[in-house]
């Protein structure tokens, strides 16, 4: 961050002399430690044989919050889900855009949009916000997952607009540890139920008890077990996953 | 002079046949309203029909707008329902702006403005507005489809207007009745008399007009502080008042013949 204060980092439309766009880099910072809305949380996505699992570590910033009422994982279409880390409001804005894209695809072709198509459109959309001084980049990393004609697929879109497909993806504060854990899994062999348990375990593992407040685990899934619909993981499975995650955590320690 | 050229002008019959879409229909039924010194009665039958078909035996044509205004709409039902919906939204904005209900005479003017705005694609609807003025008097306003309106003591509209209006002229305005010397016709009739006239109007219209029948819905609006005049004793009466501003609204339902 040597260029802080040199004036090359005040606009997305300015390169620094060494060819960097600082505003985009700062947006990445927002993903990890946004100070204003306490969203310093982790989100992960798992792509398994016949479905996708999304999970987020939802920090509970006040005990006055109503549990489970404030959802962080969003539904884009019947078959598409999205989880973000970073500025929550940016995440909602992007989800609305994604819904429009998906609806437009459906209107044109009378079939559900491929996951990759949506990831592509959103990548382009986010990229536009890295070009001009009149806007700021999106302060979010996005996991988008769904099941289309070619089966389950999972993508991550960064604030720069770049996107990649993944078998297992993690964004946000605890992404390094989460990635390490994901890499240990044989993702393509897992059933959706197994993947739910693993996802819960990973979220419990990456949550930093010492630094962060309490959290709530939120999970959704889409695939064979859900008739191809992106829906929240049912309550009984969710609590089973939480129990096992807590148990595993104790073993770990 | 012989034709110089042969014209290949298509004969009129070979032109594509044109079937003009008619955006209007007429759904029968009749409405009427009568005002008294400190009350107003607004009524309509509940049959909705098209041609010789009864579409439904219960489709309301009379609507409570506020605690002191009731609107009856008759004509093309789709226009009528949309019009009422739009009036209600305008009244809601008025409430937001002024934290009170719009006065009756203002609603009357609002309706004329809204109707006239569609002068060249009119709502095919005859409106009758009844309620209580700010001075506490009962009032009836009647409208034509493009917004011409006036305040009256009584008005009938719709399919059986030609049957009911002459009857009201005679019974309310005492047309063709000569008063006994020293006993002038009353300025206003008492509420229960008016209610009986309304019921008689509709039973008669039901007898003689195929588009009238099935049910009668009658709204009674009482001025602030007015006595109940026995309304509370009418069988099946139901109070519709929402606020505590003083005016009260009641509704009475009666069956009419269904044939």
């Amino acid at each position: 961050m040597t260029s802080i204060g040199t004036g090359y980092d005040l606009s997305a439309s300015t390169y620094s002399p060494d060819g960097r766009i600082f505003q985009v880099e700062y947006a990445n910072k927002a993903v990890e430690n946004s100070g204003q809305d306490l969203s310093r949380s982790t989100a992960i996505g798992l792509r398994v044989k016949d479905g996708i699992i999304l999970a987020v570590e939802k920090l509970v910033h006040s005990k006055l919050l109503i549990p489970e009422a404030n959802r962080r994982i969003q539904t884009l279409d019947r078959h598409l889900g999205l989880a973000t880390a970073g500025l929550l409001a940016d995440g909602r804005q992007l989800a609305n855009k994604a819904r429009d894209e998906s609806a437009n695809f459906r209107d044109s072709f009378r079939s559900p949009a491929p996951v990759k198509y949506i990831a592509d459109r959103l990548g382009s959309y986010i990229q536009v916000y890295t070009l001009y001084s009149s806007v700021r980049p999106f302060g979010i990393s996005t996991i988008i997952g769904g099941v289309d004609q070619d089966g389950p697929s999972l993508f991550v879109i960064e604030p720069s607009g770049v996107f990649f497909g993944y078998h297992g993806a993690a964004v946000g504060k605890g992404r390094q540890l989460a990635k390490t854990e994901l890499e240990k899994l044989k993702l393509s062999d897992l059933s959706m139920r197994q993947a739910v348990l693993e996802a819960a375990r990973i979220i419990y593992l990456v949550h930093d008890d010492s630094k962060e407040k309490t959290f709530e685990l939120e999970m959704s899934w889409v695939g064979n077990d859900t008739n191809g619909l992106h829906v929240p993981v049912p309550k009984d499975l969710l609590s089973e996953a939480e129990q096992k995650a807590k148990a595993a955590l104790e073993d770990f320690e | 002079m012989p034709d110089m050229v042969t014209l290949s002008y298509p004969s009129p019959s070979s032109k594509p046949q044109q079937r003009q879409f008619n955006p209007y229909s007429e759904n029968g039924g009749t409405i009427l309203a009568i005002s008294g010194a400190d009350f107003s009665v607004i009524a309509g039958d509940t049959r909705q029909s098209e041609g010789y078909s009864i579409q439904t035996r219960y489709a309301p044509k009379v609507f409570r707008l506020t605690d002191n205004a009731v609107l009856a709409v008759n004509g093309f039902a789709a226009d009528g329902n949309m019009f009422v919906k739009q009036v209600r939204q305008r009244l809601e904005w008025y409430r937001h702006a002024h934290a009170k209900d719009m006065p009756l005479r203002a609603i009357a003017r609002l309706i004329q403005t809204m109707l006239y705005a569609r002068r060249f694609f009119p709502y095919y609807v005859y409106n009758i507005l009844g309620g209580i003025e700010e001075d506490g008097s009962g009032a009836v306003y009647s409208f034509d489809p493009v917004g011409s309106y006036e305040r009256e003591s009584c008005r009938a509209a719709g399919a059986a207007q030609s049957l009911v209006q002459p009857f009201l002229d005679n019974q309310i305005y005492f047309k063709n009745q000569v008063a006994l010397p020293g006993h002038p016709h009353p300025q206003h009739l008492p509420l229960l008399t008016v209610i009986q006239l309304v019921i008689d109007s509709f039973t008669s219209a039901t007898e003689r007009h195929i588009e009238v029948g099935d049910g009668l819905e009658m709204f009674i609006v009482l001025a602030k502080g007015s006595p109940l005049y026995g309304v509370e004793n009418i069988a099946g009466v139901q109070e519709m008042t929402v606020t505590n501003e003083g005016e009260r609204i009641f509704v009475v339902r009666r069956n009419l013949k269904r044939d």
Partner: protein
Amino acid sequence: MDHFPTNWGRPRNDGFDAYGTYPIAQRPYNGLGNDVFSEGVQRTQQPIVTGTSVLAIKYKDGVMMSADNLASYGSLARFKDIQRLHPVGTNTIIGAGGDMSDFQYIQALLDDLMVEEFTEGDGDGHALGPGEIHEYLSQVMYARRSKMDPLWNSLIVGGVKDGKRFLSYVDLLGTTYSASTLATGYGSYIAQPLLRKAVEGNEDNITEEEAVKILEQSMKVLFYRDARSLNKYQIAKITSDGVAISESRSVDTQWSFADGIRGYGAQTQ
């Protein structure tokens, strides 16, 4: 497209080819009414491929609806495997008579709406019920008629929400009404009286079996009398358990009497 500029219309009806663009033998007629714009923009349409009656009744457990599988092209029985009953969400069914392409458009519209509900609502407990869907359809139908560009259909919306039965009608004019028996098209003349007789005042007692019987009987009468109908139809029921649309079925009919009618069978002057 007419590529001769002289046919595009002129400020005045010149009686001759002022611009000299035509050989005399082909000189066009420029008389009144031959201006290509004289007919204005044509938005008004007529139904092309059409479905006939839809019937619906309320009964003890909910609402039942039926429609045959025919889509006619004028008097031609063009498509004989068309479904005219369409589920919307988990507790609503719409049945359509009139233009089938307009109906398909309406299905697409409602599908978009349901996706919107699914994503934005995201299980918040505010699913659209039959009442809301009927209101929405009414607004669409009325808006299109007001643009003089109607969706040429008669639609029946039926369903159950929070234990309450709902049954309502809307058509190309935006006209709406509710009743415990409804019928569109030819059915409104022929079947409606039969349905009313069987159902009115009896809505809470009719069992599912009886409801099926009532509709079967009416469909049979319609098949006998409506030349644009087909003896292949479906019955849908909507109860608090959800919607169910039957496979196509038919009723036994007896046409031997037709032999004795002039116009049927062998012609015997």
